[in-house]
């Protein structure tokens, strides 16, 4: 991309330098925007992939391999990147961004600040700071902790995707693992009980102890009298039982990074409500990724679909729309974001889980089951107004994780069937963020 930038003119600000921010940047330049782009990043490294953090912790990727884009590539996009520059306030009225390093104005702004792990419901009684997994810093801390020679047992609290990937990393480091989760099954909100149970069977086969339907009640740090350096964590569960671990990983979900947004500045649900071009209720501010609540196609409602691809596509949409608007085309001739369908793929050691669409089984939906020795497929069909049955979701659990295998092909095939629905959706992106928030 050849960029000839003028020194005056509009400034596009991007708050956040993750996948949504990078894709906004790429799309802005790809759509021909040659003006100034200023990126605010609260880290001092290149953008990393949160997906790869667990691979680093588990020893499958090096630290360097977790950064999908090199300096040379990002440099070619010619943005002013403000590293270690935390945004403390966004003032949409004055078009001003206040940061730890100074105050900056903008013409258009994209909020792509991502999400942070929540520690909520982790016992307050302990001074122990549990391990979390999101950033490379988190990953480095986790890896350092669990690879200490005297670390033998790890407790993972949570039943989400992040919890399971952290669990796999620990298994890959040869640790004994216990997973505790408030829910009665793993893969909260993503799996039907039968699929979750099959996945749990795979975890048990890997030697994982499962404490489902339980929470941590108390954590007490205990110093081992035989080793001055080794402290252990005595954990009391809601069942009343007590066990001792060396480290605790907490993965209790994520919350959007929107501390810099003042109450009432934007229309909000769980995150910033956006229209079909990723515009918030302020026409000069866009949002993408974990901070954006956009249309989810199965329900037709606005939801956060927090995954890598969605963040990338939304960031690109915001970039194209801004470039189009700044070029004077107020009608947004560029393709909008009609919505997304949630998809998930996770493998823990040899057990693969793949899903897409909704897991909500209502009176108009039924579940069809296929199971053999290798695979379980649960398909959710919905009866349409014309009496036809439409696939709206599926779970696939397989006893082996082989890239390119039938399980991956089947998962992709079923995902495509759900996505057929996309073509029947009105392809005109709506231009108001204020519809159908959950």
């Amino acid at each position, binding site marked *: *991309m*050849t960029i000839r930038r003028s020194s005056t003119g509009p400034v596009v600000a991007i708050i956040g330098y993750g*996948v949504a921010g*990078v*894709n906004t940047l*790429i*799309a802005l*330049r*790809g759509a021909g925007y040659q003006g100034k782009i200023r990126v605010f990043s609260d880290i001092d490294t290149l953008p990393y*992939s949160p*997906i*790869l953090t667990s*691979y680093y912790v588990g020893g499958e990727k090096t630290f360097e*391999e977790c950064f*999908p*884009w090199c300096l*040379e*590539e990002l440099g*070619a996009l010619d943005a002013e990147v403000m590293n270690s520059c935390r945004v403390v306030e966004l003032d949409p009225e004055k078009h001003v961004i206040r940061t730890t390093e100074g105050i900056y104005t903008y013409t258009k702004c994209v909020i792509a600040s991502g999400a942070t792990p929540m520690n909520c419901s982790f016992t307050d009684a302990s001074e122990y700071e549990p391990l979390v997994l999101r950033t490379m810093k988190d990953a480095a801390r986790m890896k350092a902790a669990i690879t200490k020679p005297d670390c033998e047992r790890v407790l993972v609290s949570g039943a989400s995707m992040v919890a399971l990937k952290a669990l796999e990393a620990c298994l890959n480091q040869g640790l004994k693992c216990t997973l505790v989760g408030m829910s009665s099954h793993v893969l909260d909100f993503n799996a039907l009980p039968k699929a979750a149970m099959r996945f749990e069977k795979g975890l048990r086969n890997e030697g994982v102890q499962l404490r489902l339907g339980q929470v941590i009640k108390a954590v007490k740090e205990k110093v081992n009298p035989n080793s001055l350096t080794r402290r252990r964590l005595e954990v009391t569960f809601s069942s009343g039982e007590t066990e001792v671990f060396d480290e605790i990983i907490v993965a209790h979900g994520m919350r959007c990074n929107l501390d810099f947004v003042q109450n009432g500045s934007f229309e909000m649900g769980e995150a910033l409500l956006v229209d079909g071009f990723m515009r918030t209720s302020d026409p000069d501010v866009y949002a993408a990724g974990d901070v954006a609540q956009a249309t989810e196609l199965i329900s037709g409602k606005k939801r956060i679909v927090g*995954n*890598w*691809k969605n963040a*990338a*596509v939304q*960031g*690109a949409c915001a970039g194209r729309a801004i470039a189009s608007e700044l070029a004077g085309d107020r009608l947004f001739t560029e393709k909008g974001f009609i919505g997304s369908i949630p*998809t998930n*793929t996770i493998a823990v050691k040899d057990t693969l889980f793949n899903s897409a669409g909704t897991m909500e089984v209502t009176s108009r939906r039924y579940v069809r089951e*296929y199971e053999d020795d290798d695979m379980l497929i649960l398909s959710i069909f919905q009866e349409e107004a014309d009496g036809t049955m439409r696939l709206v979701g599926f779970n696939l659990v397989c006893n082996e994780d082989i*890239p*390119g295998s*039938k399980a*991956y*092909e089947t*998962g*992709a*095939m*079923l*995902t*495509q*069937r759900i*996505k*057929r629905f996309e073509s029947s959706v009105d392809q005109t992106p709506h231009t108001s963020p204020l519809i159908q928030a959950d």
Partner: protein
Amino acid sequence: MGLLECSKVYWEFTGQCTQCGHCTKACASLSATDMTLGGIAKALLRAERNAGSVKELRARIVEDTRLVQAVRSCFLCDLCTNTCFAHNDANGLVYHARVDFQNLALIPSDTWLSLQVDQEWDIFTAYRSVYNIDFSDLRRHMLADGPKAQAGFDLAFFPGCSLAAYAPELTREIFASLEELGREVTLIDRCCGSPLKNAGFFNRAEALCNHIAEEILGTGATKLVCVCPGCANNMETAFVRNNLQIETISLSAFLTESGFIPKRDLPDAPLCLSRSCQDHDGSYLEETCSVLGIDSFACSVFEGCCGAGGSVATFDHKHQSQQTERKLQSVPKGSTVVSMCPTCTYTYALYLSNNRRDEINKHYTELLFESQIDWDTVFDRFGCMWTGETGAWLAHVLT
């Protein structure tokens, strides 16, 4: 625009790829070159960044032998996309890379001249000409009275270039059956443009489909019945692109909804169905099972490219042959392999003619109709046509 025509596509792909490496583990072509899909996009952009001229860019890409191998040896089968956590579009990436390769003369012309299916002569039309395979009587919309007078068709039948060339009797029998089902049918015996796309002529492939779409519109047909899922995809895309209200339907689905009864019994040997890589959502497979009266869960299904995808044979014949072998190895011994795409059937037939195995190879239409494909004759004819008088003519029109 930079030195590469499709750099925007590579940037988009680069933005969406985590570099997790899952695609490499899934694909024999990528693992042979130790490249990820994102790595292909990045390598192209790097070559562009570091080159001052088209000549230099070409030289840089040629130097990167892994990149050239990865782009040219891709079967475009979607195995990597299906394994990718983000389902990033590998086909789009490689098609565009081949467009740039074509622009930079990195695909030798002798590998694609016979596949220029938008020209008067290509390997299929030449074969048909040499062996007098002619369907002009079935192209009803083009008969004497002119297109306008012949616009009263409700169905257009699209057998695809392979079936039309290698199985003319079967093509005619299917056509007759569609008529017997009470439909006004005309034949569109053209190629959907896949070979052009494979060779990096994206625009020409689209233009060809647009032209065919216009022809179908002129027939008055509102339904296009396709034998092959790849043809159906290309034509459906063209209808959408041109805003035409023509429905694309698989032959199997059409036969089922019309109450067709198969003209022969199923073979005794267990069936092993091959899901075409172009059958992205498996609907062709399911519809074929339905017309055959079998339960797709009750018979074995194998996935992935037969080896013919992406015209890999024009670049690395051994790699293509290994892929065919890999696929057939996953078939239960003694099965009847049933493929959806006639080119897959051709590819398996060619392999089996040189490598004896217990498996039988059939196109699904051969299980529905009386006529069968005589592959021995087809391969004999291919061998003969390049000699003597026809050989000289072929050398003239195809090279």
